[in-house]
């Protein structure tokens, strides 16, 4: 099944399994989103509205976004201004800068995981109006996605500490 997905950097098997799990989850959630929204368009023509489309759509959107952010972290594909990195070059200055950036990102992701978990714990009591699911399920996307992203940034930190040169981003936007 792997050859059906876009390439990812070389990594140990468990990280690859995690990455593929994330990738396939995004594909399935994305496909579900298309089906639900399109089904609702068809239903509108029949003067019928699927009441949970909006809530379910937003639920899926939150999950695909934070899982997608993790998939992007795995492929080093987040949007960044890269001119300074290019100026710094491949020498020791450039390596140090790249390592420092990854370490800062680790801290930010750590904050997201920690406070994301706090938010999840506080929102088991809030229930989505139509779907009747606890809000915690939706908010869980933030700490979960950030934790997975954290794994891949740590993978890069380890690789850099071992003196490996990592290729820049695999994909780009707009």
């Amino acid at each position, binding site marked *: 099944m792997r050859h059906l997905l876009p390439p990812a950097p070389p990594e140990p098997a468990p990280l690859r399994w995690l990455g593929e799990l994330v990738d396939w989850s995004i594909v399935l959630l994305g496909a579900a989103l*298309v089906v639900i929204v399109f089904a609702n368009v068809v239903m509108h023509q029949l003067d019928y509205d699927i009441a949970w489309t909006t809530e379910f759509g937003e639920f899926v959107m939150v999950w695909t976004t934070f899982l997608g952010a993790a998939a992007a972290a795995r492929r080093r594909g987040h949007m960044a201004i890269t001119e300074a990195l290019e100026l710094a070059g491949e020498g020791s200055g450039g390596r140090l800068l790249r390592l420092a950036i990854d370490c800062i990102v680790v801290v930010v992701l750590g904050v997201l995981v920690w406070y994301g978990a706090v938010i999840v714990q506080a929102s088991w009591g809030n229930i989505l109006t139509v779907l009747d699911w606890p809000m915690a399920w939706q908010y869980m996307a933030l700490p979960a996605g950030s934790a997975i992203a954290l794994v891949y940034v740590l993978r890069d930190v380890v690789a850099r500490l071992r003196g490996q040169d990592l290729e820049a981003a695999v994909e780009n936007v707009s």
Partner: protein
Amino acid sequence: MIMVFITLTFFALALAGIPLVYALLLTTFTTLWWYGLTHPLETILLTYIGGVEPFVLIAVPLFIVGGELISRGGVGRRIVAFAHTLFGFLPGGLGVVTVFACLLFGGVSGSAIAGSAAIGTVMIPAMVERGYSPAFAAALVAVAGTLAVIIPPSIPMLVFGFVSGASVRDLFLAGVVPGILFGIGLMLLCVRYGIVTGCDRGGERASMREIRAAFVAAFPALLMPVIILGGIWFGIFTPTEAAAVAVVYGLFISMFFYGDIGWRELPALVLRAFTTSAVVMVVIGATAALAWVITVEQVPLMVTEWVREVTDSKWMFLLLANIAMLLLGIFIEPLPALILSAPLFVPLAMAYGVDLVHLGLIMTCNLAIGLYTPPVGGTLFVAAKLAQVGIGKVSYALIPMFVVTLVVLFAVTYIEALPMGLVWLLR
């Protein structure tokens, strides 16, 4: 003062190369800590989640999937063939065909880079073979490709509609006339190039039968914008639902009608589109978190008052806004630039009585120009790579095109009826 602190912190972090989403979040955290603000971090992170949640934003990944489905494979080639039967006879005809194909392609896809790649792959070799300089061919494709974000559907306009609250339907309407004007300006430039250099005096005029055959081959692709935009404008579906319709239609056309795409290509295509959109979404969410702090601290109010002291005139404000956005567009890609600057421009525009739809259009045009302004830019890179010429040579060839696009930009900025006429008519 807090605005200066936020701006300096953010730019220091972002220019160092920290991914924008993390730079924004870190700026938010640092600001809270530095100023000893007591807003709970949970509230701010809830704003971060809330920033990516809205139903309208689902349109972004879906329009990317739809555009990808239809632009893979042979649609670019068929659109070019159709454009060629219409305009191939003109002097500089291949250039005119390139521009017209980009216009049509813009109605199918909302991404400038996809436009440059799909049309450039076919047209750059054809132009070079005919004797156009590779630098001119590359420059033309770099500029014309950005018509895709001005002609609806447009991903930057969708995002602007969300961050500003302006109607996406009206934004899409506002893009039609300016997109065509940019196109006409570029076509005239090509005709002139064809006459002056003598490399392309125009081919045979196509017969009605040839035109009809090319039209029929391209018809299913050309029908897509009609369905999407018609559906939105006549209120049959919302922009979000239109995006889902675009996916289903694109799937039908590319898999069953043209047979350009197989099932096995779908997972990677969907994953790429959703990852691309997720990367944009988290920046939107992080901007929402920072904007929350900025708004609670009443910063936009202060900035608005400060700019109003500089000038009272709406026209002067628009000029300053254009210059600021052109500069921003040189350094930052359109989507992040739009997301970052909209929270400041929107209250200003309201204070000066500028219609938000008009502002959104002006911002999109400016940032599109940033896509091919040297030394960096998405379509610039794609086109230069396709033509295998250096950025320096392309930059020189870009000069006359800059003149044309700046003239059109100022026309759509200062003659409000050009972009807004259709909007007023159908509002």
